[in-house]
């Protein structure tokens, strides 16, 4: 009788541990997916591509103001006060960064003059001018 109860106790403990471990495992997986999807890095990666494609689609002698408030919010959250969008006009490389890390870079093939991409930190906008 005592042995049977012990077995039942062991079974119950084993099942409980199994369920707890399962819940823990799937919670970790969900946390990982949500972190990967909403990380600063993926936002930078997405936004740098969006801005570069907009630059490449622009016609000459055009001025465009882009709203980059999502990037601004992330930069504020990371206490980053620097330039969010930096362009290397000679190499055609656009870098978007919302923290003190290296940021995310993407190449654009439109010929732009120096100072054609201006970041306004007060309005959270990016002004792009093509020559």
């Amino acid at each position, binding site marked *: 009788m005592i042995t049977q109860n012990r077995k039942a106790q062991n079974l119950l403990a084993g099942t409980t541990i199994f369920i707890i471990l399962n819940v823990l*495992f799937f919670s970790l997986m969900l946390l990982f997916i949500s972190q990967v999807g909403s990380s600063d890095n993926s936002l930078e*990666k997405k936004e740098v*591509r969006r801005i570069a494609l907009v630059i490449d689609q622009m016609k000459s002698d055009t001025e465009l103001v882009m709203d980059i408030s999502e990037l601004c919010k992330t930069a504020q959250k990371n206490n980053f006060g620097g330039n969010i969008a930096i362009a290397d006009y000679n190499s055609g490389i656009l870098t978007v960064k919302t923290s003190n890390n290296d940021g995310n870079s993407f190449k654009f093939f439109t010929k732009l003059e120096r100072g054609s991409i201006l970041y306004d930190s007060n309005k959270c906008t990016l002004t792009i001018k093509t020559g």
Partner: protein
Amino acid sequence: MTNNIIKNKKADERYLSIWMFLNWIVVGACIVVGALIFLNVLTDVRLAEAQVLSDRLSNCLSENFSLEEFNSAGFDIYAKCGLNKAPLENYDLYYLNITLQEQGSGKAIKQILKGKGTFEVMCEYQLNNRKTEQNFAQCANNKLTIIDEKTGDEYGLVIIAASNQI
């Protein structure tokens, strides 16, 4: 017999626990790899970029087209279309193939090739078979008829652009 069943049951439970951890490792690895692949697909803009480049060249060349200018030795496609030479030629990420043809016969008058030449085969394969290979550079093509502003003659213009910027 009864003893045997009990023994097997115990063994089964022990092996199941190992299997359980192995299963978690496999499931975990699949979720991690799947999430990363999914995110990379979401940020893959190669086809859009190739299409933008192809459209840009089409618009630029069809506007005020002059065969004399296009055929001249000093014709610079980058200057003409406001393109930056550095990213298009220095990083092996892009490919351009512009062919001007005689209308009707289709005989090539002039061909301009820029960027990474090996993308030509990838583009030919994908465009001819009308399918997309994710491991290849992504290609876009435009075929149009352009008119010489001075003479009024018509020409065929075939543009193939490729991007492999991930």
